[in-house]
């Protein structure tokens, strides 16, 4: 079975982001980028499936600028076999990402597509569900456990009330939650090997997809800042403040 994994290049989760002075977006110059953390988990899961003999080939796909090559290389160093870069400098929103991924899926015919549950830049949490819709496939979102059976896949999902297990007919879409696995670090030899793995580059137009945004960002602002309060000396002082000043208990 071929497994396809979608990986997005995002501002690193450790970066303290800054809103641009003209309120058009956030500062991206001289900022560290890396693979969306949920996508690292997605790649790791695919590699484990291959190691377990359940997957035969892992194709990683990224949509974004030329620099998204680096993200694909990271995935290749973790153990993916080849990459597809849909290269564009335009803003690509989740519906368009899903349409592009569908076009790649139509060509590649994987049995399973794994995505992150959420990109930590736009915090949309949409693309996997949208791709499942466009393909007419089943979806197992927010996965904390995946077990491949015969023609079906069991996915344990992190839901608001606890955990839920569903069985999906294959082919299927899975989106990863934080506790699915702990992604490996690529070893130096694997990073060297990844340099030789193929990456196929194409443009959205080559896939015949209209990627025009449906949402226009009118402005991006900084949220109201909370100001630090006071330090209290002991528990008695704390309880007194909560009772008599904040009046919350």
């Amino acid at each position, binding site marked *: 079975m071929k497994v396809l994994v979608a990986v997005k290049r995002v501002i690193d*989760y450790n970066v*303290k982001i800054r*809103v641009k002075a003209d309120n058009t977006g*956030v500062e991206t110059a001289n900022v560290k980028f890396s693979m969306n953390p949920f996508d690292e988990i997605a790649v790791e899961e695919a590699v484990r499936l291959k190691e377990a003999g359940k997957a035969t080939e892992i194709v990683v796909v990224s949509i974004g600028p030329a620099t998204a090559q680096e993200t694909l290389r990271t995935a290749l160093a973790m153990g993916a076999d080849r990459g597809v870069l849909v290269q564009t400098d335009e803003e690509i*929103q*989740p*519906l368009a990402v899903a349409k592009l991924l569908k076009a790649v899926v139509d060509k590649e015919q994987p049995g399973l597509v794994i995505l992150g*549950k959420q990109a930590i830049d736009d*915090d*949309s*949490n*949409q*693309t*996997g*569900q*949208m*791709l*499942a*819709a466009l393909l007419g*496939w*089943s*979806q*197992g*979102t*927010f996965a904390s456990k995946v077990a491949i059976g015969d023609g079906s896949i*069991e996915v344990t*999902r992190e*839901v*608001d*009330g*606890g*955990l*839920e297990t*569903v*069985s*999906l*007919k294959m082919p299927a879409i899975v989106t990863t939650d*934080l*506790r699915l696995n702990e992604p490996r670090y690529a070893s130096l030899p694997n990073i060297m090997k990844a340099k030789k793995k193929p990456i196929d580059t194409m443009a959205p137009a080559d896939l015949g997809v209209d990627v025009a945004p*449906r*949402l226009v*960002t*009118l*402005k*991006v*602002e*900084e*949220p109201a800042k*909370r100001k*630090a*309060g*006071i330090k*209290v000396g002991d*528990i008695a002082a*704390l*309880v007194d403040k*909560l009772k008599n000043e*904040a009046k*919350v*208990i």
Partner: protein
Amino acid sequence: MSVLVLAEHEAGQLKASTLNTVTAAKALDADVHVLVAGSGIAAVAQAAAAVEGVAKVLTADAAQFEHHLAEPLAALLVELAKGYAAVLAPATSTGKNVLPRVAALLDVAQISDITAVVSADTFVRPIYAGNALATVQSKDALKVITVRTTAFEAAAASGGSAPVEAVVVPADPAVSSFVSQQLSKSERPELTSARIIISGGRGMQSGENFHLLEKVADKLGAAVGASRAAVDAGFVPNDLQVGQTGKIVAPELYIAVGISGAIQHLAGMKDSKVIVAINKDEEAPIFQVADYGLVADLFKALPELAAELDK
């Protein structure tokens, strides 16, 4: 044109998140309809009909909706959506699972986790873990929206008397099925609607030590939450995680114990009215957002807090 809200319910009860979503829907249009899909949902439909400001309740009562699976629910919503200007659901694990599927089937964008309605086509939503707020305008004729419930007041649960109408149930796509669930049981209030929350982090050191927190929670009638580190370490179950990728909460009082205050955690609780931090490291970033900070060892502070609340 009317707007449709997907009701959230469990065990025959309409969930509070539906009430917040109705308020968001009312900001789009006064004619708010609520869809209750499930199996054996008469009581929930009655509860929805009683919500203030609801003009009509639609019911879809069929076995395929029992477990809120995304595929059959989306198939239903796609049929119904055509008559509406907008479809809204709370940004819960069900809403987030289903609405993007609906939007893609209708070839429209989905707008996630809105915190304000500027006008019928313009919304505010947090991005980058809430470190920026984007105002976005939708160019689609139909808006498919998930709502951050903490950003909207709850509509009154009584005062309405909407008519209830059954809808035609489309065929089940039958590509997925429910196997089992492990729901956490708790006598305490639910995290997302609790008035007071006390959360523990890695500093708690073990699941057993959460009893120290629970003692305080019981005295305050509080819900218990956790940081990702505490969940990852297995101290508590996943549904207690507060943060960018866990639950978003905004109680009157949030007490963070042994939590450093990473941006991903702050993303889930920084809109709380009053924040208290108990941490032994005076440099911990959590103190930068805390109204009241106590630099102390939690193993000493928590029993003291429990005792002080008894006074």
